[in-house]
């Protein structure tokens, strides 16, 4: 198991709570320590440090689940929390048998390399140094820097009446830089890793600044264009694919975009997509929120749909040979289903993005996407904007900055129309951290696809 730098034994806490609870109970204890520094106009603006421990008590009664949570760790509060969960589960059970298959049995979990002791120190001096490096890089280019540097250490323990006694600690770090000139032109670069030492702030600053050019903005009207998507844009689209097509519950209920399509071609032959939680390039975890070991799952192979991810709840709904793949995102499984959290899209044969743009006569180069939302679930039809580095591609070369465009297109259609991918992949993340910190990212290359549907542009 990964070593702890926190000094608090979360597993002992989980076992203490379990002793206060009744039968068929799982206790999940999560300690988050994190530090986040924001900056704007090449100056620090906000800095947030969080130290919090959440205890979640899951009780299963006759196929019904109830979860009660608290962050008070005294016995009285923990006993009251356990009682709340028990009472709620019993009240639910009065409605008749439920569908939950019960708590997970112990299974071996693997060690991983998703923890870095230096990062877990959350030293504000490291954050300050990263900011200074970015400010200097931006100043060299005559632009201002905006963005965030953050690091977190999250320790998760699970104890259950079925004998689970698990403990895991992970770290993550994320930095994004938006460089902006006086006219509002902007460029973006970001990095994410297990260890803060793996992020090179100055390089990120220079990459973001290099995307800010003073040339006049070109404009493109609505239409169909070939597109090159950088890994940040690809990663966000794949996260949506995870929700809409690879979620085992949606799939089992017939709502999923791959429902009825497993074993059939859904993407170009060069598309190999997996959830690979054991890959050292991802943000690894040992087990999911039901205590099930994280398993690798082939999702699309050679363009053919192969499978979806499951938690115990969705596997029970799916029936047959379906089993949890270790993708529960909440104790007892989320009502919204499981999710792939370690997506890896295999690279292709292109040496770099220049090779991707080379065959394009007139098209679009996209650094990142913004405010993407689902339009029609079964079609994986999304809409969103480009942002912080959109360029026109003419005669095989990136030529001019382009006014941000709105796209309305299907992720599966884009994957089916993918013509080439870079060999190099990058771990990308949105780094948003709403609620309890749960860092996740997608490992993916840049790609070129045909027929990108532009439905508008901003002004």
């Amino acid at each position, binding site marked *: 198991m990964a070593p702890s730098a926190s000094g608090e034994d979360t597993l002992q806490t989980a076992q203490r709570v379990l002793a206060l609870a009744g039968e068929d109970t799982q206790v999940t204890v999560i300690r988050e320590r994190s530090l986040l520094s924001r900056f*704007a106009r090449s100056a620090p603006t906000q800095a947030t440090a969080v130290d919090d421990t959440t205890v979640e008590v899951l009780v299963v009664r006759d196929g019904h689940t109830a979860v009660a949570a608290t962050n008070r760790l005294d016995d009285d509060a923990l006993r009251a929390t356990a009682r709340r969960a028990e009472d709620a589960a019993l009240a639910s059970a009065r409605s008749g048998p439920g569908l939950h298959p019960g708590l997970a049995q112990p299974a071996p979990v693997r060690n991983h390399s998703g923890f870095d002791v230096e990062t877990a120190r959350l030293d*504000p001096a490291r954050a300050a140094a990263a900011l200074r490096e970015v400010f200097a890089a931006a100043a060299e280019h005559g632009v201002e820097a905006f963005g965030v540097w953050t690091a977190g250490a999250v320790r998760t323990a699970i104890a259950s009446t079925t004998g689970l006694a698990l403990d895991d600690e992970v770290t993550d770090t994320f930095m994004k830089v938006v460089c902006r000139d006086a006219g509002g032109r902007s460029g973006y670069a970001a990095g994410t890793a297990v260890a803060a030492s793996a992020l090179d702030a100055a390089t990120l600053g220079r990459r973001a600044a290099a995307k800010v050019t003073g040339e006049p903005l070109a404009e493109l009207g609505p239409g169909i264009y070939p597109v090159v998507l950088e890994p940040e844009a690809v990663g966000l689209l794949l996260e949506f694919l995870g929700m809409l097509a690879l979620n085992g519950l949606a799939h089992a209920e017939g709502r999923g975009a791959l429902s009825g399509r497993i074993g059939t071609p859904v993407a170009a032959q060069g598309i190999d997509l997996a959830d690979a939680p054991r890959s050292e390039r991802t943000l690894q975890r040992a087990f999911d929120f039901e205590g099930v070991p994280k398993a690798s799952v082939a999702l699309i192979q050679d363009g053919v749909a192969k499978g979806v991810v499951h938690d115990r709840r969705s596997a029970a709904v799916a029936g047959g040979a379906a089993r949890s793949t270790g993708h529960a995102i909440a104790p007892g499984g989320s009502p919204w289903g499981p999710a792939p959290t370690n997506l890896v899209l295999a690279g292709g044969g292109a040496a770099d993005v220049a090779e991707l743009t080379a065959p394009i006569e007139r098209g679009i180069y996209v650094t990142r996407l913004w405010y993407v939302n689902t339009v029609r679930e079964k079609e994986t039809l999304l*809409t969103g904007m480009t942002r912080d580095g959109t360029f026109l591609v003419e005669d095989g070369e990136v030529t001019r900055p382009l006014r941000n465009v709105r796209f309305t297109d299907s992720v599966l259609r884009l994957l089916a129309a993918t013509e080439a991918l870079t060999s190099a992949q990058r771990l990308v993340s949105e780094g948003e951290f709403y609620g309890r910190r749960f860092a996740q990212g997608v490992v993916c290359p840049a790609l070129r696809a045909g027929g990108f549907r532009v439905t508008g542009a901003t002004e």
Partner: protein
Amino acid sequence: MTDPPSDRAGSATAPMLDLLTGLMASAPKRCAYAEARHVATDSEGVLVRNGHVEQVDSDASGGIGVRVRVGGGWGFAATREATRAGAERALARALAIAESQPVAPAGPLAPVQPARGHWSCAHERDPFDVSLQDKLELLFAAEAALRGDPRIVRSDAACASRRVRSAFASTDGAACTQERLECGAAIAVIAVDGDELQVRSYPGAHEPSAACAGWEHVLEFDLVGHAPRVAAEAIELLTAPPCPSGRATVILGGEQLALQIHESIGHALELDRMLLDEAAYAGTSWVSPADLGTLRYGSEQLRITADATLPGGLGSFGWDDEGVAAARTELIDEGILRRALSDRQSAAAIGLERSGGCARADGFARQPIVRMTNVSIEPGDAGTLADLVADTGEGLYLETNRSWSIDDRRLHFQFATETAREIRGGELGRLLRNPSYAGVTPRFWRGLDAVCSASEWRLWGLANCGKGEPGQLMRVSHGTAPARFRDVQVGVA
């Protein structure tokens, strides 16, 4: 009704207020400003799905967040340890973080009258006094009324309740406590036939249509009574003709108009965005501080207020999270932009004499940032929805949000709704599936030519407004009445 602030601290929060005021009294002199908040939140969510209890979750958590300013640098530290020792450690951590920052400009904060007293929102029946059995009984009845057609693959009935008790103290002399109670409920179905999938929700798509109110708010929805219509419309949508493409006159229903205001007015008028503080995440704004007082934002029918004193609003409070008293602010009058949403720092940055009272934080572990309160369109004089439809002749009536997206300057947007109804000859006609519309903010709002009267005006709660890093989900309300827009691009998706 919303209670006016009283002089007495809430009994549940008084000991914590003593702790925080003591902490502020001991804040080191090197700290130019400090504030401390204790927030304790109780929440419960219940979901019945496809005939089974799918979820019963509850949470009782709290802690202290301390924010300090040293020179121009800010530091914020949050801890679950709600003790004097825990608070002192958080204060020390916040100071260490602020002092480690690269040098930042030390601009002023807008002055504030120290917040004193206690505020709470009134309610008739505390939702935490309603038994889980009674809640389940209501939800089972509503959910059962959604089922029947095999094409309905998911039927949901849900309710949620939330109580937030807070105490706030600052080195500016603030010492106040607040207690808010919220609840809401909703029903929704997903219908699938082959590759076609349709959704229908009531009373809104953004769960769970909450208000700052008691259980009486949930009972007013009559979920059981509306369920058969919701299910029938979802089934009808599966085979309804698609929404046509082109330009049309549209009437937006109240919930969709709430989101339209939220995305294309509320966020655009956040002063921190205008000042580029959010440029790396939430974005900037097409509006600049220099536009205040002169910019034509929309037609003369457009009157927008931000009102943190509205009874029932999720954005209502006694004081914001910097201790600034709740206020009603005219943002847009007869289409002209008047004011922005601000906190103490952004207000001072553009020379305003006082904050707009819009600093809000998501729980104890996040620091306050500029947020909407209750940003609403004022009622017009177009009568009822039926009157407006009758006056319209030809067009589309769009209802209940399904998809939303807008650029990082809040200019180009695209929305989809669950339903559209044709308007022909001044009457509502057949249902159309997959409706969508797009536009550019000032042109769209200049197309506004009628707003229904006060009898149609109500608050819509949105509990999932994302902003800030680390991410914060804020709860806001928008008052709307159905309104009509001319020459809108429809059928874009």
